[in-house]
């Protein structure tokens, strides 16, 4: 085909895709809804949810996981637009990392060493590493679907950020159920679950986000 002909054809094609930001705004709530549905089928809110909300530990879990999700979404929203640098917003990842570091410093500084081990091991670590990715999976699917409207120069990295965001949101949802509240537990076991989703996002993203 001649380039001139191709241009004539392209100019006749008026259909335009939804912007990736709009697609995320439309699909992310759907992914969250599926995750909440999964939660209601498989898990229940911890019985001491309200009293625990008054302690620092439960709000800490929400703050870390939700700020992680927000930072990852911020980064990925730039990664899917060609010519826009994501580096400047990547510093937002320091917020969840800094909070986690503060939480761990608090544990190590304020609680007796003999409680560190039990806090780290927790009671339901095995559930945590399964349910965090499970809660995040529908969110990751929704995000990847939406980000297909974008044009990431590095599809694997964009997929990994989508996985990180889904992991943060999935972990926040799981925190409604989970009674292991030590920041050491959050770092380790939530971390493993979130890392698994990040890796999955990178692998899938490399295939489905290429354009």
């Amino acid at each position, binding site marked *: *085909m*001649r*380039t*001139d*002909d*191709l*241009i*004539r*054809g*392209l*100019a*006749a*094609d*008026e*259909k*335009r*895709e*939804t*912007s*990736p930001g709009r697609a995320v705004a439309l699909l992310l709530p759907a992914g969250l809804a599926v995750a909440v549905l999964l939660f209601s089928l498989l898990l229940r809110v911890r019985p001491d949810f309200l009293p625990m909300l008054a302690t620092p530990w439960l709000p800490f879990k929400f703050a870390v996981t939700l700020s992680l999700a927000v930072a990852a979404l911020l980064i990925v929203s730039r990664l*899917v*637009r*060609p*010519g*826009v640098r994501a580096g400047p917003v990547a510093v937002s990842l320091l917020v969840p990392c800094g909070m986690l570091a503060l939480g761990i410093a608090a544990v190590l500084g304020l609680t007796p060493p003999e409680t560190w081990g039990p806090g780290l091991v927790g009671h339901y670590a095995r559930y945590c590493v399964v349910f965090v990715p499970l809660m995040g999976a529908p969110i990751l699917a929704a995000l990847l679907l939406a980000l297909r*409207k*974008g*044009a990431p*120069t590095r599809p694997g990295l964009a997929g990994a950020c989508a996985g990180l965001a889904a992991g943060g949101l999935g972990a926040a949802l799981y925190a409604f159920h989970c009674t292991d509240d030590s920041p050491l537990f959050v770092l380790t076991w939530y971390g493993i679950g979130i890392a698994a989703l990040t890796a999955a996002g990178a692998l899938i993203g490399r295939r489905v986000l*290429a*354009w």
Partner: protein
Amino acid sequence: MIDREEAWASLMRSSLAGDQAAYQTLLRALAPALRASVRRRLAGMGQPLEECEDIVQETLLAIHLKRHTWRTSDPFGPWLFTVARNKLIDHVRKRGRRIEIPIEDFADILPAAEERPGADSAEVDRHLAQLPAKQRAILKTVAVEGASVGDAARQHGMTPGAVRVALHRGFASLAARLRTEE
């Protein structure tokens, strides 16, 4: 350079607001600029220049299908150059996995490069031939024969809406095939 980018940005703004004439003007202005830059880069990488027009057309398709990822408040140059560089790298990488046969072996059967200078892409034609029949027919009628959407609809006994959908899907699957081919 900056003036040129600003002119392109303003054409793209009009295009995204629905001005199809501005869009066509923009693509016609971008094609020679892309061609010159692809040629220079191919030569710099020691890659065969014959593939230049394949890459130009792949890039134009990508610009078309991803134009909604440019925000009208952003500078247009970095967006364009990133898309173009990506398509060039994809193309060269794809080729890297294939066995390259020295061009001399084909010298007799290849048409002289000057015949229709930098205007044809054999690769696009090859993938065009594999599209679903309806998409291919619509693409040919609108692009090659230059029919309007309305004319194409009458000619193929379809509604204008169906023609628009077939046209868009045709370009999207063409781009997907170019990206994932062997």
